[in-house]
């Protein structure tokens, strides 16, 4: 299948007063159409930054300093001053108007905290109006309402609540509104950044279920960013594990859980509590990730890695392909 998104050598840096930190370091990533890619890792590993750079919304003081983000557009995308013609475009080369045309229309982004992601001062229907008018200034009021009704109804929100303010909704409902807004213009790519982290386990299950259904319905390609490997096991086709801004391993979900290649991926999986296997002895990774402002040479995982060799301390391992299209960045797999 064709790739919808190709990320090549992407590097994002945060320039702080203390120094420069590489939030995303030379990342390569391919995303096949209609697949769900899970992006996992601990806090500070760069998974959100990676997601945000696809939208060109890296938070201040972050900045994309190198690489390409290629997106395959199946049709022309018009915007007020012109048209982005179909084919492969580099998102990082687009001007402000062009990227704005893609946001919401081709790529949707769902944020972690539904409580703060809706403007408290305006009603839900106004949110729908804004997004639709932003991409199609001539759209009729009637049509907006109709489409908003349809989407909300599909998410189990009764249409009469559309003129409520966000604070009148519960957390789960707000996240549904966010999803509805994201999908209002039928985008191709959905990036969900910890969409259920701030929700309770039952609502989490409900929402994951709904997202899965919508993905089928709208033929979405999805990037699901989360620290919860349990969530990914059920939803992702492929999983990329990140650490210190680099991708450590990318594998099909089943293979990853069965036989993780990278020592970090292995250790991470061993530390996840499993409700079905209480006999599993939970392990943990000693030490802490290095400070990204003072990166260490070689593989950044080497001080915590039980298999660390001399080369790990000096050379950054490349992300190489091993059996069955799995990708791993570890010197242990050099010879394969």
């Amino acid at each position: 299948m064709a790739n919808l998104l190709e990320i090549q050598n992407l590097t994002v840096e945060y320039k702080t007063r203390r120094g420069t930190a590489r939030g995303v370091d030379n990342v390569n990533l391919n995303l096949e159409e209609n697949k769900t890619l899970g992006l996992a890792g601990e806090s500070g590993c760069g998974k959100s930054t990676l997601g945000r750079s696809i939208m060109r919304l890296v938070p201040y003081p972050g900045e994309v300093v190198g690489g390409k983000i290629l997106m395959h557009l199946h049709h022309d995308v018009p915007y007020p001053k012109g048209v982005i013609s179909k084919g492969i475009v580099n998102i990082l080369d687009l001007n402000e108007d062009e990227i704005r045309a893609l946001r919401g229309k081709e790529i949707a982004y769902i944020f972690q905290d539904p409580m703060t992601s809706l403007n408290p001062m305006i009603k839900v229907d106004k949110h729908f109006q804004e997004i639709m008018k932003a991409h199609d200034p001539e759209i009729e009021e009637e049509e907006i309402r109709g489409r908003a009704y349809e989407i909300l109804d599909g998410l189990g929100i009764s249409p009469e609540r559309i003129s409520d303010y966000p604070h009148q909704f519960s957390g789960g409902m707000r996240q549904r509104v966010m999803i509805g807004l994201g999908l209002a213009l039928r985008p191709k790519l959905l990036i969900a950044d910890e969409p259920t982290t701030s929700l309770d386990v039952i609502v989490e299950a409900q929402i994951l279920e709904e997202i899965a259904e919508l993905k089928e319905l709208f033929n979405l390609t999805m990037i699901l960013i989360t620290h919860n490997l349990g969530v990914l096991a059920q939803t992702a086709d492929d999983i990329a594990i990140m650490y210190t801004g680099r991708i450590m391993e990318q594998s099909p979900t089943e293979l990853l859980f069965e036989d993780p290649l990278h020592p970090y991926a292995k250790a991470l999986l061993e530390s996840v509590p499993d409700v079905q296997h209480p006999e599993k002895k939970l392990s943990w990774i000693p030490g802490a990730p290095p400070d990204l402002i003072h990166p260490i040479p070689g593989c950044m995982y080497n001080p915590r890695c039980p298999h660390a060799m001399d080369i790990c301390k000096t050379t950054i391992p490349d992300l190489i392909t091993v059996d069955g299209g799995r990708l791993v960045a570890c010197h242990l797999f050099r010879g394969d």
Partner: protein
Amino acid sequence: MALVEVRNVKKYFSVTKGIVESLMTREATYVRAVDGISFEIEKGEVLGLAGESGSGKTTTGRLCVRLLRPTEGEIIYNGKDIATMKGKELRRMRRRIQFTFQDPTSSLNPRLKIGDAISDALKLQGIGSADERRGRTDEILERVGLSPASSFYNRLPHQLSGGQKQRVVFGRAIILNPEFVVTDEPVAMVDVSIKAQILDLMMDLKRELDLTYLFISHDLATSRHVCDRIAIMYLGKIVEVADRDRIYEDPLHPYAVGLMNAIPIPDPKAKKAEAVPRGEIPSPINPPSGCRFHPRCPMAFEKCPNEEPELRDLGNGRQVACHLYDN
């Protein structure tokens, strides 16, 4: 006899209203955070308290250490009711009962060296001379794995990692030699790769110091690894209490069943979640009548909205509050 016995404890928070409104309406509005719960904790046991946010589990934990004063009910600790204790007696009792907070960062004073944060406990209780306190603190720092103590004593909280901060919090909790520790979501804010590290520390401390835990967590997968028994709360009520393996493998209360089904399983081959309850937990200001779960319950029948089920003993240390199990 149980170490801790909670009897019919209630905690209502009044909702602040305007002067006029309180004059116009007779009835006061309350958030019924905890609405009549009873349970026991045996010495040396780990009781897990599980439930979604808004279920009242954190309030229960705070009541047990008297950070809050119960509106009603008794909390019997070692034969004494601590619910009404005051002044000196309460201060002495605090040496025996400790609490750890969810967020280690905010529960440590950012301006206080971590050694001082730990030895502060002794100072506040007026125990020992400065030298003795220093010695004891060093001991505790080593005990919670922050060694060598001398290199950690003078650090400020922001110089530590999340896991290390949580260790300091545990160190502060055990320095007074408590018997009973309430831990409120101890691993919710730490990264998954070091979760097990904190849990190991907790269990080591339990073994060595003969502790009893009330382990509050929304993460049922973690609870399964550490608890002996689990109590599940919903809207200020306990709906089911049982031994760990029983409640996970054969939950009885429909809410417990739904909760178990919703847990994400880190195994792609496992069955997908099914039969997850509809809707969300309602506001505790006006809880539903009868059984509080009935509007979301797939098994609800005519009795449920009208009559509140009692938490009844089904034998084998198993208690359920559900009309399905009325004999």
